[in-house]
């Protein structure tokens, strides 16, 4: 099996045929030269072999096979994954990210310390993509509460909607209760203000209005006793202070007499206050005044109570909207009503009852269809596009180089701003597998790897004879050394076949001879050499086999001696002999 085999290689650029049906085979261990007049298509052949051009026709076999990236399972997985991601992105974008975020995150946001309802949010995510109807809370700060006498009793109700909340016999108690409820409602149905009452003692006056929170039972009982004694307490003045005294015990200290009187009458309702242990209960606190308002058994109940009060007073409403477009459908008072409305709307999908519902229904259907179309389009375009791009890059220079085929260029292409030794290191870098983290942490492995590579680079520089110039910037090298450096760099990729494109161009005779020796030494290390060259001395001196190109076609192939005698070759180089 030949190392490199060209079978009917044809290269066309537009209407121009640069190379036409060229066949030749390079055997292992040979120095094979391609010669021909300028414009014969030699470099084009090189470019086709190294993957810079894709052959128009024909095959290039290296070690019996075409060098193309193989289709692996990993590739197929990647293609499908990219397609799926594209589809998902398109679908999510068609559903409007901003509103999706609102439906899933913002509306489910809880207060600090509360667990986020992940399950519900996830459900909302899918419901959003299905363009369902949803209910969201909406705040309305206009509503206040009032106490209204009715049939000899006093009713607390919302001023705007006249929703009755609680009823009392005593006006003073009702007024006090109103304050408590107003405070509760001002908390906006928030659970931020509930605290756990573990180990605390509460002083509670009817109707369950908390007057104090204490750490010990004794302190709580003391306050309850004070409140019980309050109606009979006497007002005494002592110095510039006014005291409320009962049986030699001071209940309160005030700075003016009227304050003491006010306190006495204001707290009169609380003479029946009792002491309760708040263990495991939740106390709703007024954030502003830090006074306790109500106790409930669980946090959920406390939260529900706050929410319910806000709802009843009209401070909070439920807003019905379609998710996908947040199209407004209406408001209702309670969560139950909202859920009921949603059930009605979703249950009526088959029979359009009202024009509004029909519109919602149509909107939902449209959203759903768009979603699936986007997902499908994304999947097809994403995976198809990925595969198309990949397959166009199956036969690329880097892949071919990594498989053992290195080249130099006719017009030298070094990395001009890099050091000479770095230029050679570049040839090895593509094979190195030291991972990023290892380099970042400068582990022993990374250091050893770099050290070994540098040593090998210096060896290669010594091999081509420029080891003393390793620390120079590449573009400052003399021309001949740049050629050598390019060869060293190509050798650094550890090739099995080395393609040299006119290595002797611009060299003087003594340099050419050195180059010949170098090429021999390269061949002796086991690297096959494919050469383009104009210097006949070099070509005839080192080639095992020569192919001659003219106008893109091969006109001859053979050993140097055969080529020297071939009339076609002589004609191509010297012109046809006129027969007179």
């Amino acid at each position, binding site marked *: 099996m030949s190392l490199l085999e060209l079978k009917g290689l044809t290269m066309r650029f537009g209407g121009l045929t640069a190379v036409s049906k060229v066949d030749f085979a390079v055997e292992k261990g040979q120095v094979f030269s391609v010669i021909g007049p300028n414009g014969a298509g030699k470099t084009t052949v090189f470019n086709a072999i190294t993957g810079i051009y894709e052959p128009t026709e024909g095959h290039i076999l290296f070690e019996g096979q075409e060098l193309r990236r193989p289709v692996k399972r990993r590739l197929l997985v990647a293609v499908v994954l990219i397609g799926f991601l594209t589809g998902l992105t398109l679908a999510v974008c068609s559903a409007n990210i901003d509103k999706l975020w609102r439906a899933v995150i913002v509306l489910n946001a809880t207060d600090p310390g509360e667990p986020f309802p992940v399950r519900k949010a996830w459900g909302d995510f899918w419901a959003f993509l299905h363009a369902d109807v949803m209910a969201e809370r909406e705040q309305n700060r206009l509503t206040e509460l009032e106490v209204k006498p009715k049939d000899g009793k006093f009713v607390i109700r919302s001023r705007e909607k006249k929703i009755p909340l609680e009823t009392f016999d005593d006006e003073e108690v009702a007024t006090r209760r109103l304050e408590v409820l107003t405070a509760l409602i001002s908390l906006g149905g928030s659970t931020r203000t509930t605290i756990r009452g573990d180990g605390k003692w509460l002083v509670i006056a009817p109707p369950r209005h908390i007057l104090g929170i204490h750490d010990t039972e004794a302190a709580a009982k003391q306050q309850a006793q004070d409140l019980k004694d309050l109606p009979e307490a006497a007002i005494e003045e002592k110095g510039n202070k006014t005291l409320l005294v009962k049986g030699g015990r001071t209940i309160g200290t005030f700075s003016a007499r009227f304050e003491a009187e006010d306190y006495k009458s204001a707290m009169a309702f609380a003479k029946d206050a009792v002491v309760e242990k708040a263990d495991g209960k939740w106390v709703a606190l007024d954030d502003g005044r830090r006074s306790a308002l109500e106790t409930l058994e669980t946090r959920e109940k406390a939260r529900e109570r706050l929410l319910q009060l806000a709802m009843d007073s009209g401070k909070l409403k439920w807003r019905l909207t379609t998710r996908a477009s947040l199209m407004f459908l209406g408001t209702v008072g309670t969560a139950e009503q909202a859920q009921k409305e949603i059930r009605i709307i979703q249950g009526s999908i088959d029979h359009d009852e009202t024009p509004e519902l029909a519109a919602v229904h149509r909107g939902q259907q449209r959203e759903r269809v768009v979603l699936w179309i986007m997902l499908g389009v994304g999947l097809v375009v994403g995976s198809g596009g990925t595969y198309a791009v990949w397959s166009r890059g199956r036969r690329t220079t*880097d892949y071919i180089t990594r498989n053992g085929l290195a080249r130099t260029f006719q017009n030298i292409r070094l990395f001009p701003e890099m050091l000479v030794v770095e230029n050679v290191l570049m040839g090895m870098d593509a094979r190195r597998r030291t991972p990023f983290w290892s380099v970042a942490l400068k582990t022993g492995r990374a250091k050893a790897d770099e050290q070994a590579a540098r040593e090998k680079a210096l060896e290669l520089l010594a091999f081509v004879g420029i080891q003393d110039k390793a620390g120079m910037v590449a573009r400052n090298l003399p021309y001949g050394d740049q050629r050598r450096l390019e060869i060293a760099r190509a050798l650094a990729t550890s090739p099995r076949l080395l393609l040299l494109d006119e290595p002797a161009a611009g060299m003087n005779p003594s340099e050419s001879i050195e180059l010949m020796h170098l090429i021999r030494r390269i061949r002796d290390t086991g690297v096959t050499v494919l050469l383009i060259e104009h210097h006949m001395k070099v070509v005839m001196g080192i080639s095992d086999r020569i192919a001659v190109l003219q106008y893109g076609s091969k006109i001859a192939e053979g050993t140097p001696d055969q080529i020297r005698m071939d009339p076609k070759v002589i004609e191509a180089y010297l012109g046809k002999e006129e027969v007179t």
Partner: protein
Amino acid sequence: MSRQKEKVIAIAALLALAVFPLVASPRIGGEVKNILVFCILTMGLNVVVGYAGLLQLGIAAFFGIGAYITGILTVSQFPFQWNFWPATLAATLGSAVAGAILAAPTLRLRGDYLAIVTLGFGEVVKFAIKNLENITNGSRALNPIPAPDNLLDWNGNYRWYYYLALVMVVLVALLLRRLEDSHLGRAWFAIREDELAATCMGLNAAQVKLSAFAFGAALAGLAGALYAASLNQTGGPDSYTFNRSITVLCFLIIGGMGNLRGAIAGTFILMGYDNILTPWIDEAVQNSGAQWKFSTFKLVIFGLALILMMRFRPEGFFPSRRAEEDAAG
């Protein structure tokens, strides 16, 4: 400049910066803290523009992405409420992913065309931040971003953020220095120098460009996270405009492309001029009783300096080691 000498200068500069907040006024110290944060951003841009030679005009977009990822993950209005550190990590990785997603389809573009794409991406991000009101709070910005921990008085004393930024700058610089000397960094240089030759060395140009883009974006994201944390808020969409991208590119051009010294020095020179020197001169002028303000001329002077720079020292104040060696040899 030899490696040894460079090391000495770097350590001296580091010591000076470490002592600086102990003697400086809080205002100037705060400005230097900002400069340090922008140093990271400039170093990120340097990876893309300086190392890999890909003209990137939308670095501010990744800066913004980093800031907003940090904001979204930490502020109390959203349920995530992460700590600053994991949020910073997420911002860094998130920006890198955004960079990779932008780069993957545009790798085939060269030079000007890539620049146009990155410029467009910058605008897209700016308007996305402005319009995704539920996610980013629109022009009101996300705030407050909580302090990294409760042990230190982060908000009362700028010095903690200063030292945090300084440590990050040192870590990033160290990382980049190591990459420069490794096969990973060399691959970027090779792509910049000669893409065809680099692929003939077996390098996958697409992968290398992608890694440069993602790495630059990651550093920009890290800078954005620090920026947002030190501001206590993300800053509105107008903090992440094309203008900022160009400013950072100017830091790099003035300082010298393709090397760390240039990136850091350029940031210090230009931001120092803009935020420290100009107010100081203004104050001096006002104290002398004159009626004009220096700051009205600052952009004129900056423009002139840029023109003169391009005329007489196009490689920047601190050109890369290579260019310098070349000038010497």
